């Protein structure tokens, strides 16, 4: 394989991993209250600034500030659920009202981050907008892999397995699925729905925080960085069906690969499209999904069908 193509694949994989982290969180909040959380991107930006703060003041590698980013973003998501979305939902606010509230929260968080960035640059005289983290690479034979590739991939794989175990093998996971499927019935059967939802929000915020800590390795970061990722996150989640966590993972990789590889070919000679139009790819995926398969990809992939297909294949082989 040529090096240019390898780097392209590595880039796409990293971008996919970041989107998976974001999209899983977004889906997780969507399946609780059925609102698209527009503030999700800003939870990631909080993670970005946590990592940046640790990086500039304590000289700690952004990779080591992942747990802190997870905790802080998760806590803010939890607080927003407890003090904004839950009270609103309890008062009988409709979907549109909740969406407006989430946009309001988005504006509040983003403006707060702008204020924070201003304070950073005014009082401490450091760059607080448009910064990047420098990554190191590992050389394996002829391949040189960035740390981010290894760590984000490992984290995504870990996430896929832990969600699988959480949702199918643990009591909490089963309660969670029940609470999501039918909150009233679950409540009657003794599941603490509120607690399940609160934990979902915390996890969602935490995952966004981790993604945020990784973002400056790839994109020049500032208070708006999460907002720029939001559209892609929505595209990934919706492509995955918006109700399925595995769908969100699939959607994340699909959008990540489509964007990176798509723009690589579109910016080449025959078309020469400016790379600045990259976000348009996610947007087109979003629109096409909504108009053609609004229920998402996950709904099209049925495990039973696959196993049936495998059986028929086996049978035909035997014959």
């Amino acid at each position, binding site marked *: 394989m040529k090096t240019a193509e390898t780097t392209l694949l590595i880039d796409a994989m990293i971008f996919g991993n970041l989107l998976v982290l974001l999209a899983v969180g977004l889906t997780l909040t969507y399946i609780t209250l059925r*609102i698209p959380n527009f503030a999700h991107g800003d939870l990631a930006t909080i993670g970005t600034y946590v990592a940046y703060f640790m990086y500039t003041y304590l000289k700690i590698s952004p990779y080591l500030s992942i747990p802190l980013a997870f905790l802080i973003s998760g806590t803010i998501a939890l607080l927003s659920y407890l003090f904004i979305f839950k009270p*609103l939902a309890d008062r009988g606010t409709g979907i549109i009202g909740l969406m407006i*509230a989430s946009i*309001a929260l988005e*504006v509040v968080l983003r403006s707060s981050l702008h*204020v924070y960035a201003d304070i950073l640059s005014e009082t401490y005289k450091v760059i607080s907008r448009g910064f990047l983290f420098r990554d190191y690479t590992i050389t394996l034979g002829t391949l040189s892999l960035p740390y981010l590739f290894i760590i984000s991939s490992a984290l995504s794989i870990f996430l896929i397995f832990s969600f699988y175990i959480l949702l199918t093998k643990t009591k909490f996971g089963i309660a969670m699925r029940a609470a999501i499927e039918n909150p009233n019935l679950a409540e009657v059967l003794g599941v603490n729905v509120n607690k399940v939802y609160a934990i979902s929000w915390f996890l969602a915020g935490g995952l966004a925080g981790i993604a945020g800590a990784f973002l400056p390795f790839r994109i020049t970061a500032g208070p708006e960085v999460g907002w720029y990722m939001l559209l892609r996150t*929505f595209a990934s989640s919706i492509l995955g069906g918006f109700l399925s966590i595995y769908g969100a993972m699939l959607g994340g990789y699909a959008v990540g690969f489509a964007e990176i590889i798509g723009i690589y070919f579109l910016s080449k000679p025959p078309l020469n499209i400016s790379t600045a139009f990259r976000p348009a790819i996610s*947007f087109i995926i979003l629109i096409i999904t909504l108009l053609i398969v609004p229920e998402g990809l996950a709904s099209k992939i049925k495990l039973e069908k696959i196993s049936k297909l495998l059986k028929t294949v086996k049978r035909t082989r035997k014959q």
Partner: protein
Amino acid sequence: MIGIADPIRFVIDLTAFFSIYLMLSISLNLEYGYTGIPNFGKVLFFAGGAFITGAVITRLLLIIIGLSSENYCSFNVLYASEVTKYLAENPLLSVLIFVTMLLAGCIVGGLLGYVASYPAIRLKETYLGITLLASGELLRIVARNYDPLICGTLGVSVPDVFAWIPVNVKEFVQVFIMLGIALSTWGFVEKLTRSPLGRLIRAIRDNEIAAESYGKDVVKVRTKILVLGSAIAGIAGVLYALYVRSVHADDFMPLRTFIIWVMIIIGGVGNNIGAALGSFIYVLTERLIMQYKHYIVAPFDVNYLSYIFFGIILILILMFKPKGLLPEKPSKTIEFEKIIKKLKKK
């Protein structure tokens, strides 16, 4: 007035921005408050009007004058001032251009509204909100990166179509015309909401299935309202571009949509007086902050503080006063006595 350097300037700016935001909030109220379409992409249609003005007006006038528009983006400030000089001597042409631009904004806004109505009718509220929000961002990204439109990140300057009016009254006239257009839009929407169509859109908002079962074409009505609301937003965009005298893509962030939502939620959804009150409160606060900004010593931009403030206010209103300051009232009907009198006469 205390602390305001130039009270006349302040009032002119206040009135101008109030007029623009009044049109936007009234049209959003028509879409969401009366019809129930959650238009989270209001900025898209507003930007449509502003972009068409920025893209067309100077080029069109250069053609009329007979000058070339070579290297348009590098020299657009120069071209705009050249064109303004020409317009100052041609009142008739100025008025004609002004009206043409308003029409163009109306058409572009309406067309964008028609395009947006395609998913708007088919999607649930959630998906519709996401799609419209994303569409607004897409238009901004395109405008930012596609230079021929409004010169990308540089932005484009817009000539003064009111240059022919004597300088001392020019701005008063301009603001007066803007307010006039805004108020007549208000009157038009108010009239519309009291017409049979107004009752129909409220019926659709309250119970879509019931309205459909009475044989009403919900899809068609929604398209109509979205096209109408977007056309109003397009006109507002033209007025904005002509008042600010420049168009920058980054001026049309989704934050603007949020501001318009703040206005109608604070004022009262489904009540045009509420929408007007909401826009007045917002514009007044914004202008006052601009005035007093220099007096406030803070290590950050005070504008962000106002966004935080409005965000929190919005959430609090949703929680404690979800109907806004002026809740929706039953639509006005003819007085009972008058009806009795008419019946007796017969």
